[in-house]
Structures are given as C-alpha cells and as structure tokens.
C-alpha cells in the first residue's frame, strides 16, 4: 500500500490516500471532499481545476500530489465562508457572474491570484490573466466586471 501523504490545505494539515503520482485534483475532491475545483479537461487547458499553491493559481488536474507536499494549498473553500466571503467571491455574487457556475471556482482563484500581485489591473491585464480559463456559458463580461469590482473594493 502507498504511504500516507500529508498536504497543507486551507490552513490545516490533511492526509490523503492517493499515490504520489496521482493528480492533486483527485486528492482534493475525493479524499478531502473539497469539490470546488472541478475536472474540466485533465490537460491544463481550461482552468476549472485551479487552486492557489503558494499564492499562485495553478491547475491541479495534472500536478502530482507529491509536488504539492510542503506547499500552501488554498482552494475556493478556503478563501471565505458563506457568512464571510472573500471580496472576490462577494463581487462574483454581486455581479451574478456565472450561468452554470462550473468554471466559477477556478475563475475566483485566478482572480484572487491576480489581485494579490496586481491590485489595480487594467481590463487588458484581467483578460490576459484569465486567458487560460474557459467559460462556455458566455458569462465573460460579468466575470470581468466582478474582478474590477473586487479590485475597487479591496483597494478601499
């Protein structure tokens, strides 16, 4: 049997039962019950599975679990709670920035990472930062508005 792997997720030490080569996404979703990050392509093409790893928004669908050991992993569940949303989450709610919402968690993560690095992004910078996220419903303009709203709020 494979030995237990310990990950630091949303501020806690957690054990997962996957092998070291298994993509992080499956450990998060199936071992830790964190269903926010989604399987979209398994090819690092769509962004639905992105999580923060040491502050950087990275796809989790191919990254082996062993590469995440010892690093700070934050999923959308760790950003805020239903009662106390992260400003980016709140902005997405206020702008109704989704239709189906399958891509939303990945986008929230992408936006958080962007605003950490660049608190006052231009529209072009937001578009470029989210260019490796796909949304099929066409909620793009709302998402872009939500990111601008979050930036304004966080600057306050």
């Amino acid at each position, binding site marked *: 049997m494979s030995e237990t792997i310990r990950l630091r997720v949303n501020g806690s030490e957690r054990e997962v039962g996957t092998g070291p080569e298994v993509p992080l996404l499956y450990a998060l979703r199936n071992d830790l019950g964190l269903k926010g990050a*989604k*399987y979209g392509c398994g090819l690092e093409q769509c962004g639905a599975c992105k999580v923060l790893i040491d502050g950087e928004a990275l796809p989790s669908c191919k990254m082996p679990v062993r590469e995440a050991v010892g690093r700070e992993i934050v999923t959308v569940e760790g950003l805020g709670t*239903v009662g106390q*949303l992260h400003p980016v989450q709140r902005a997405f709610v206020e702008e*109704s920035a989704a239709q*189906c*919402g399958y891509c939303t968690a990945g986008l929230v993560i992408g936006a958080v990472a962007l605003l950490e690095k660049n608190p006052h992004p231009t529209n072009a910078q*937001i*578009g470029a930062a989210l*260019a490796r996220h796909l949304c099929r419903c066409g909620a793009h303009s709302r998402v872009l508005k939500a990111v601008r709203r979050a930036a304004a709020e966080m600057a306050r």
Partner: protein
Amino acid sequence: MNGIDAALRIEEDGCVSIFMSKVEVGQGLKIALAQIAAEELDVDFSRVCIVRADTAFSADASYTAGSNSIQTVGEWVRRAAASARHCMVQQVADAWGVDVDALCVENGWIRERGGARKMGYGELMGGKAFNRPLIDDVRCKDPQAYRIVGRAVRGADMVAKVTGGGEFIQDLDLPGMVHGRVVRPPGLHHILIDVDRAALEQMPGVLAVVRDGSFLGVIAEREEQAIAASAVARARSAWKRNDPLPPSESLYEQLRHGEGQALRVVDGAPVEGEVDEPRVPPDAVKTLRARYCRPFHLHASLGPSAALAEWRDDSVLVWSHTQGVFPLRGALAQVLGVDVDAVRVQHVEGSGCYGHNGADDVALDAALLARALPGRPVRVQWMREDEHAWEACGSAMLLEMQASLDAEGVIVDWNHDVWSYTHSGRPRAAEGASNLLAAWHLQKPLPRHQPRPGGGSHGGIHRNADPLYSFARRRVVKHFVRDNPLRVSALRGLGAYGNVFAIESFMDELALAAQCDPLDFRLRHLDDERACAVLKAAAEKAGWRRGVQRGGSEDGRGMGLGFAQYKNEKCYAAVIAQVQVIDGHIHLERLVVAADAGQIVNPDGMANQLEGGVVQAASWTLCEQVRYGPWGIESRDWDTYPILRFDQVPEVDTVLIDRPGQPSKGCGEAAQGPTPAAMANAVFAACGARLRDIPFTAPKVRAALPLSG
C-alpha cells in the same frame, strides 16, 4: 400526483416547494419559477424552494428545450400558484364564515381586512395535499401589481458557486460510491475484438471489467484507479476498423448532393408536394445569389458529462443532468431490457448545457457498469476526449439564397434553400432502435434511429428559415439530407443559427444593391412593430450611423446588424456587432443586443442569457469547427477545438424591452442567429470582405478582401 399537488406543496413552515418538471441547465429557470410562484402566492421570494425533477414524483414535461420552459412551465406554475392561493383563501373564508373579498394575503398570511384574524399558509396546509385540479379560469394577478416578477434577482444561487458548494452532478458523493470509466472505440465505427481482462483485473482497486460487445468499461474503488485502468484497457485491446467516414473536405458538396428529401416550407412549416426551382420575376431589376455555410459545432460543456447509477433488486436509480428525466427513463429501460417502473431518474444539475450533449449517454454508461456491482452507486464521468469526440454535434448547413429587387429597392422575390442533416437525435423509447450511444456498441446492438425530416412549425433544419419580413413572393425549401457523417442532434438554436446567418447577411447584400441603409432596408420590409422596436433600440444603444454600407472604412472598424424573432413566435432579438479588422484578424470589440421576450420575469436572468447567447454564438462564428477524419472527430480538446477566451471577448450591452401583460417567452436561443450575421456584416463594413463561410478565420477574411486599386 396531479393538479395543484403536481406543481407545488405548502410546507409546515409556510415555505413553498415547487416541483420542477423541466430542469435547470444554467439558464436561470429555477429563479424565474420561484419568482412567479412567490408573486402569485404573495410569499417572500426566499421562502420558495425548488425541488429538482425526479421521475418518482415530477410531472412529465418532456425535454427542457426550444426556449419553451418559461412559457409553458412558467404559465403552469403561475396557474397552480394562483389556484392554490384561491383554494386556501376560500378555505379560510369558509372557516371564518366571511366572504373571500373580506380577506387578503400578505407575505404568506391570510388576513381579515380591517380585522385581527390571520392564518398562515403553513398552519393551514402544513404539507397536506390540495387534491384539487388547477382552476381553469383562475384569476391570476394583474401584471401591473407585480412586485416580484419583473424585479432583477441577482446572485440568488451564486454563494454556493463561489464557495465550492455548488452540488453539481460531478460533485455528488454517495456512501459506498465507486468510480467507472468507459473505453470508447478508437474510431466511430470500430468493433472490439479482444481485451486483456486479466491485466485489468490485477490493477489496484479494480472491482469489475465490463464488456458487452464493443462496450467496454471498468469500475474501481478510486477515481484515479478507474482512469488508470481505462488507459490500460485502451492500450490492451484490439479493435477492427469499419467503414471510414466520407472526407470532411467535401462536406458541403456531400450536403448539396446527398440523398434525402426536399420540402417546401410555408408559414414556417414543411408541406408535401412539388418543389419548384428559383426563378426571376419579370419586375426584377436586380437579382442576387449567394451561398453560405456553417460547419459542425460542439456543445462542448466545460464539465464533461457525468452520471451515477445504483442497482437494487433489478431496479436502477440514476442521477443525471439530462434535459428530460422521463424521456431518458424510457430510453434507458428499453436498452436495459427492464420495465420503465424499474428505472428512476433523478435530475442533478450539471455543467452548462446548450442542447443534447453527453448527459443521457453517460447515464446509460453508468447504468450498464453499475449492473455489474449491485448495491454500489457507480459514478461515471466522461473524460474531456470522450465529450469532444462522442457527443452529438450541431449539424452542418449549406444555404443558397436568391432574391430580386424591383426598381424601388424592394424585395419582390425571395428564395432560401437550406441543406442539412437532422438537428434532432435525442433519446426516446421506441422499438428496435436507440439514440443512446452505448446501445450501438452492445453485443445485441440497437441501431440509431433512422433520421427523418422533422415537421411542424420551425423545426430543426427549417427553424427560422421563413423570415419575419414581408416579401411579395417567397420560396423556402428545406433539403433534409439523410446520412450524417458525424453524430448530430440539437445544439442551441438548431437550424436558426445557420438560417438567420444567411438571411441577415443576405439582407445586407441586398441593402447595398438597393443603395439603402441596412437598418432602413429591414424596417422597409417589416410590418411587426415589436420587431421594428428591437432593431431601433439596438441601433440607438450602439450608436448606429445611417448610410449605405459600401464596405470598408478608414480605421478598419465597422458595425453590422442582425435580427430575428426566434421561431417567429418567441423572443425578438436585434444584435449589432462592432469589429476592427487588422490583417484579416477580427477583433470583436462590442456586441449590443436588444430583445423583447414579452413580460420580463427576471431582468438580470434575461440579460445573462442574452449576453451568454451572443458570446457563445460569437465563439462558434469566430473560432469553432469540428475537425474530423476517416475514423471520427479529431477535435478532442480545447487546443484542437478552441473557443473564445477572456482576452478575446467583446464588451456586451443589453437592452431589454419589457411588455407587461404579454406572455413571457424564453430568450436563451434568441441571439444565436442574429449574432453571426451581425458579425459578418460588421466585417464587411470594416474592410469590405463579405464572409459567407463560418468560422471567420483570418485566411478566409484575407481571401474575401476586395482587390485593392
């Protein structure tokens, strides 16, 4: 259940449960239905709870399709809620010995006007059945008195989505759940010869290897184990190739000359009889001809299709993001060889759905696999490649247009010939055939249903083929072509996307020939005031500058217009695109959409649907084309099937025209047709290139540019 009880229940705490008979697919139906129910019952919006469709108790409303839900189910919920309210008020009036007019309803309480007595809905009904049919002539609220319908509800279901609690079917996690994956044939018609079962059965976590003819799948304790086993199964299986597909390069010639049936379309519906050739009338001064085409497109939901199934005592419970729990139940029962009562389908929301995607197919996959492991829920999610390569595509279309202008610049003769494969391949229970994918691969296969030309008003191929314009003479012909090379079925808008693209592009070509502004040219041929109103509203919002559109501008920028009323009876939509063309590359700067869908239920939901509609249609038009070779689809991921990205999307503006008292109509498909035409017309305005072949790639733009000098 029937009557009022099929639609709603008043719970003990006074909350109202609404039983969905259609399904939520990201289009905002849940919110709109909750608004309608809250309005008629006079309860707070937050006290309405939507219960997902389930064959165990829902009313059978067939498929959630065709932009019909708000009109049909919305009206049903309205009448059920009004009937429920009437019954409750009557009951209280009888109990208190007063006239119903002496009572009023406030926020879920029935009160005596000017008195102290009051009775809460919850206390009165407390989960009890009404046992009453809907009241035929029930008095619904006066739209002028609406407080909840017509109010923008924003973000109602967003908190779960931003915190990871969305509960998509992909997220469903049941006790004892195990994971399945299906190994599809390497080519569309390949046949499985052999698979190394022993190698698979030795793999860690593998619980079962299921083979039935060419249907092959694995079940494992953990998801990554199932994925690993399916990869080994692919590598350690032998398949026999079958007939190759006809070459994709000559798709449109195959369409033009394929076997099938030609039918005249009169008043939006096909009719039997002779089909004549286009002619040129004697009063024609100018006659134009043009040919347009669209390729196969994918739904390409962001989340690959998923389902769960669990067998117990020869019955199966299936969790599915199908668009129709009842049609799926019948189709599953047929393939599984059981009575329909042995199948229960529960709806769980999936990733956005724009028509008939893989949702139903994966439900059969799960049911077939789970049969090998009774008592354990088996979760199957398709891999990205499965979704791209095996879902049904939107049908390719070829259109030939011919129209004649008289000396006044009025269209006196109009011809529209459209060639396409079926747009309708949804599952349904019928003898000897099935439209569920895995059924074709079984040891005793059920062949796919032989496609037939659809009838009815604005059906698949001829949806919106008959334009709303007034022409002295029109000849609309649908050419149903039988043998589709790729699997095809309903994709958002069906034939309306290609038909309106051709009609509205051709209208601009005719406007130029008539030396008329494209907006004025349309208004000249329209009698419908609501149609004129959306056109004018879009033009005003976009800053339309009137003039003959001769093609080309100094700064490479241009605006173009497209219009349709979906199915000539639903939402009116006018779209204006603004583009800049640089070296053949189209930069889509802005899309304005003005729409009239009758009485608006949720303005924010309507805007969201229209925004999504124009952006998705823009993506189809700029980027998308299914590539295929002899053995099937070769566009198998997001690199080989690119869609519009966040750094490419335009600014989107919506103008909503509310029509209080007019029936509320669905708007989710209204913009699909006008958008590609608006874009083609904008490109012409920007650089003089007339694009008639979707997608609008840079080489096509450059090839269509007028010769300089």
